[in-house]
């Protein structure tokens, strides 16, 4: 056994020391794998970044109440009486100002993107004062909060970067009223940073919504209070609502985009991987071919075929790993944190998010590269092991 292991070490060491002589082919293989891994990791980082933005703000003790049958705020509708009934239910957290529940209106406004100058559907949310208690991560970083009853808005940091004319102090026109941006806020990187907020009482007449709302965001006493709260609402004959946890709501919203990006991402990456594996096979065949005499000499000296197979596989996997590391590094340094915005089709509005190249994706990329190296090295390795010693020694 020890003898076998030392054979493996010797042959592998020999093949690795001679990689330099096959520089061209080896570099080609490394770059091939690097390309695949970079594309794979980057594509999935788009989906990951989107998911992270939608999920990061979701807290387990926040519930969203919508009209039954609606799967997004955009399509929901609740009358004021209903929102008052909801705010009185047990299970809600309360402060000195009353229940921590905010009845909200969710609409979109056409505002040009900075990058293209074309109009985009920027989400505009009318909120009640309790909204700041429901979403405790919201912090004003510039300016101040809007004053209730006035045509003032505060803008999420991501929205202010992504869309034009949303800087502190600038004026906006929706309908016949003029709105002033009085503050910029952050929300822990969550989706709220893509939104514009104002007083719901001012937004209702501006969008001709009468005295209606679309959703109630409610802070529960504890995550466990959800079931009680939900049962109480759905059993109430005066209401026709559905209650969902914030996390479930946003998980549902990411599904379509995730499906598109990961579907296409895997398709592209697997096709590319096939191409890269062919490249790796070529490289390793060349490596084996150029070392035919060397391998035959080793075999003649008494080295067994097992160590020869392992040495070829080790070389191929190490080259692939180098490619994987390179690809992962390219993806990380070029794209991690790259900010962009896309349409969230389920709410028909823009979400600003950044690519998230997570450690998990990087590890997946590396595993993927090793797999390519393994497959790429397998056939050449078997060929090396099967070389007939006598004829191979004679070969030029």
């Amino acid at each position, binding site marked *: 056994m020890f003898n076998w292991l030392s054979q493996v070490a010797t042959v592998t060491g020999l093949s690795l020391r001679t990689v330099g002589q096959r520089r061209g082919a080896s570099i080609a293989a490394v770059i091939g794998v690097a390309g695949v891994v970079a594309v794979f990791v980057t594509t999935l980082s788009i989906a990951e970044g989107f998911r992270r933005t939608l999920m990061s703000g979701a807290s387990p003790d926040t519930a969203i109440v919508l009209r039954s*049958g609606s799967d997004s705020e955009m399509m929901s509708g609740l009358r004021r009486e209903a929102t008052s009934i909801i705010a009185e239910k047990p299970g809600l957290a309360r402060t000195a100002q009353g229940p921590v529940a905010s009845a909200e209106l969710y609409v979109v406004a056409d505002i040009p993107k900075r990058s293209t100058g074309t109009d985009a559907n920027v989400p505009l949310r009318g909120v009640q004062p309790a909204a700041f208690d429901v979403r405790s991560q919201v912090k004003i970083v510039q300016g101040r909060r809007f004053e209730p009853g006035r045509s003032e808005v505060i803008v999420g940091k991501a929205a202010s970067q992504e869309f034009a004319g949303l800087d502190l102090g600038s004026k906006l026109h929706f309908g016949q009223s003029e709105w002033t941006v009085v503050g910029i806020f952050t929300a822990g990187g969550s989706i709220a940073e893509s939104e514009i907020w104002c007083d719901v009482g001012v937004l209702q007449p501006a969008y001709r919504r009468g005295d209606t709302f679309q959703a109630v965001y409610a802070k529960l006493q504890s995550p466990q209070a959800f079931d009680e709260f939900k049962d109480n609402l759905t059993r109430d004959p005066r209401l026709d609502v559905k209650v969902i946890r914030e996390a479930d709501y946003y998980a549902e919203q990411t599904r379509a985009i995730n499906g598109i990006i990961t579907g296409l991402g895997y398709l592209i990456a697997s096709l*590319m991987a096939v191409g890269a594996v062919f490249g790796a096979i070529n490289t390793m065949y060349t490596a084996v071919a150029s070392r035919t005499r060397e391998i035959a000499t080793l075999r003649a000296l008494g080295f067994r075929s097992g160590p020869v197979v392992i040495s070829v596989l080790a070389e191929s996997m190490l080259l692939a790993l180098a490619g994987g590391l390179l690809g992962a590094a390219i993806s990380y340094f070029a794209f991690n944190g790259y900010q962009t*915005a896309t349409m969230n089709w389920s709410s028909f509005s823009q979400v600003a998010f950044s690519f998230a190249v997570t450690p998990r994706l990087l590890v997946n990329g590396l595993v993927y590269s090793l797999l390519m190296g393994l497959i790429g090295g397998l056939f050449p390795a078997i060929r090396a092991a099967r070389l007939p010693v006598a004829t191979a020694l004679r070969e030029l």
Partner: protein
Amino acid sequence: MKFLPLIWSNLKRKKLRTAFTLLSILVAFILFGYLSAIRMAFTAGVEMSGADRLMVTHKVSIIQPLPIAYRERIAMVSGVREVTHANWFGGIYQDPKNFFPQMAVEPETYLSLYPEMVLPAEQKKAWLADKAGAIVGRTTAQRFGWKVGDKIPVMGTIYRHADGSNAWEFNLDGIYDGRDKSVDTSGFFFHYDYLKEGTGGTTGLVGWYIIRVDDPAHAPDVARRIDPLFANSPYETKTQSEKALAQSFADQVGNIGQIMRVILAAVFFTILLVAGNTMAQSVRERTSELAVLKTLGFGNGQVLALVLAESCLLAVLGGALGLAIGWALITAGGDPTHGNLPVFYFPPPDIAVGAALTLLLGLVTGLLPALQAMRLRIVDALRRV
């Protein structure tokens, strides 16, 4: 041409290597096909928009409705030939996953404004006569296995009946096809009157208007004449070309096109490198053979052409096969995201681009080894082992 057997036997010398190079080129061009189809899917809305169509939406946002009374006033604007309108219904068929666009329209004028929707005459007649009728595009009909005559239950999310129920039912009167493959055939259209009566006749509001102008050249003037009509009213309008609206939607989805181009470039660079390296290797191995050829009287130009022809043959062969397989896979397999993309096909102009790229790939990968072979000095080359 008489050297073709020579080129062929050079390629056959290392069959395995040739095969794998061929396969990696093949895969690259299958990928090229998919990327073209994806790019097309994201920009189809922009490319198929009619030059003579204008869209009138609420100035604040397309989600805000406009009064139905605007129809007559818009129709009177000079330069406007035809007006129709649409409402986004946004209903759910069985499960929210089964998304497809549903719109309440004025059937006759809508079909007239969108001639790219091809509906058999008898189905059209049936739909116009049936107030609870609907038509659907081929893609969606196939997706759910619907046939003409089926009853389609849809759960309304935005629109409800006066009694609060949200169950809507439509008779499927027709299935339309696209005039060509770039037409989105995922839509579902039904009578605006059915929506109006179903909601208790209170609607009186439409989502947006679509206008056909007399002359596309005058479209900007027409747009400028419409918006002032409704200025300072509670429902101010924004009139723009269909293309501009589609473009702003494409931009909202994000710079997908650019990301696709980057990926494509990365793939080609990778394949180029692998194939180029293999070519260079095979020429290096044959140094002494090339020297013999030169000794026999082959000129520098002939040697250059010989090596280039070899690489081009390989690239064109692999590329053509790849494009063909890619086309077949895309046509047979369809949308890999299962209904999230409006159209999915390999656009013919891109096939032509792909064909040109195969040749370019052959030339670029062959160039360096070919130049080396041309510059080879017989004496040096023959001396090498």
